[in-house]
């Protein structure tokens, strides 16, 4: 009899708390967004499922090892985030997937990638003003970098308790780029500016493409050693892609390694979203601040675009500045769409890919700066 009671008491039903049920409901809602609304599903589906699994009452998945009993599955898989392993490996795959050709062909678009990072630092100030610690504020600001692995890496290093909220915000806003960016882009530009047709891009040679990752890592690595893990792997992946003699490694970085890490990363990022840290006023603040970061990043990118429009006598379409936030390739597609509204024969996609991939480098540098200044 006693034992039956004990069994009943060991079920989740008997131990369900309001907070765990709310977290499960949030997880199911995010799962719905990932599947039905296709919000970055490759990450949001595992993230929300991980969130669901750890928030079951008495869930063993994130238990620490104890008394000779091993810990939970997600406790071990989480090591890859805690030790900073997964995000650089994801960057290896991104590097192998990314064609930096449009950026090499038009290097001044790197400045658009720089401008769009302003949102990160302004949001950092905002987060400080809300009472977050500097480390937390950096993790929140980096949401504006619109780059999942960078945000996860920085947050896991500086404020792991915010990992759930920061990554949910980052991936949600990345999915919402087509809704967040266009009004800002239209508000800050004239129709004439949006209609600018840009000069055709110079063809880039194979040698340039091989040298690019090496040059980037030499400069940024000497300048900012803290950015080496992310940028080093990004550039290695790109070198695998471009050098022509390591196709196997390039494909492995893009596919098998990447897919496995994405599953582990997603699950364990979600697993970090326990009620204790997620059902707080801070999460709501993070969601608000993340939106601000995206908006300011977009605006500062477009404004830098306007400056380049002026300086080049109207040769640069300022819209492509918005792609500088990264959110590859979504933000570049948004430029394309908004550009076509103003000039149906305009084809901005390739031009926007330059700032778009520059934004990846830019936010990795921003993350390195936070690591150097705050750790």
């Amino acid at each position, binding site marked *: 009899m006693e034992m039956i009671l004990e069994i009943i008491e060991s079920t989740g039903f008997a131990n369900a708390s309001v907070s765990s049920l709310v977290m499960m409901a949030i997880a199911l809602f995010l799962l719905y967004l990932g599947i039905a609304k296709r919000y970055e599903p490759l990450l949001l589906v595992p993230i929300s499922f991980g969130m669901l699994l750890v928030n079951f009452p008495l869930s063993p998945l994130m238990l620490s090892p104890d008394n000779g009993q091993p810990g939970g599955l997600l406790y071990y898989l989480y090591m890859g985030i805690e030790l900073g392993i997964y995000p650089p490996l994801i960057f290896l795959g991104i590097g192998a997937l990314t064609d930096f050709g449009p950026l090499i062909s038009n290097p001044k678009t790197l*400045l658009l990638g720089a401008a769009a990072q302003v949102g990160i*630092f302004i949001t950092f*100030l905002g987060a400080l003003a809300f009472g977050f610690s500097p480390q937390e504020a950096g993790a929140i600001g980096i949401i504006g970098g619109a780059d999942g692995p960078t945000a996860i890496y920085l947050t896991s290093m500086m404020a792991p308790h915010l990992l759930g909220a920061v990554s949910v915000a980052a991936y949600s806003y990345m999915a919402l780029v087509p809704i967040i960016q266009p009004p800002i882009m239209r508000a800050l530009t004239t129709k004439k500016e949006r209609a600018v047709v840009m000069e055709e891009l110079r063809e*880039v040679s194979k040698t340039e493409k091989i040298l690019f990752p090496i040059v980037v890592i030499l400069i*940024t690595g000497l300048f900012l050693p803290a950015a080496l893990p992310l940028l080093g792997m990004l550039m290695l992946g790109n070198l695998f892609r471009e050098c022509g003699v390591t196709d196997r490694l390039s494909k492995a970085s893009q596919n098998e390694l990447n897919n496995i890490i994405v599953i582990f990363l997603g699950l364990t990022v979600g697993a970090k979203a326990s009620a204790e840290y997620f059902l707080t006023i801070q999460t709501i603040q993070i969601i608000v601040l993340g939106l601000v970061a995206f908006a300011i990043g977009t605006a500062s990118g477009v404004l830098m675009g306007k400056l380049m429009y002026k300086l080049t006598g109207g040769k640069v379409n300022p819209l492509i500045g918005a792609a500088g936030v990264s959110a590859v390739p979504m933000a570049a597609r948004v430029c394309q769409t908004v550009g076509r509204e103003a000039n149906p024969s305009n084809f901005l996609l390739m031009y926007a890919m330059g700032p778009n991939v520059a934004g990846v480098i830019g936010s990795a540098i921003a993350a390195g700066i936070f690591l150097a200044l705050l750790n």
Partner: protein
Amino acid sequence: MYGFDAISANNGWFIAATGVSMVFIGLIVLTLIISQLHNVLALMEKLTAKPEVIPETKPTIRVPPPDPSDVETTARVFTPLIEELPSEFQLSELYALAKEYHLPHPHLSIRCLIENGTLQPLGEGVFIFIPSCEE
């Protein structure tokens, strides 16, 4: 602590300003270097212009460029290449070999061989070679 007080107390203004500056400095330097990359390369190419291209180690099979639609000749020319490959091979391997030996219009020839059935698809891009096509 909240608001401006919190920002000041945590050195926020300084960090943000430094951060933005560093991002810009880093990317401006990169812009300058990347934009000079093709000029430097062009210069180096001029300086190191080789007198003659070193030929590949693989010997060139010199055959009168066959009419690619003349399947029998094409098949004859391709036979030694295919023999270098395993019995089931990727089409891409054959292309690579054909290029290595400088065979004329490999794409067209291989297409002929496939259409004519001399190369037989096994799925997943794998092909086998059926020498005589009179089955």
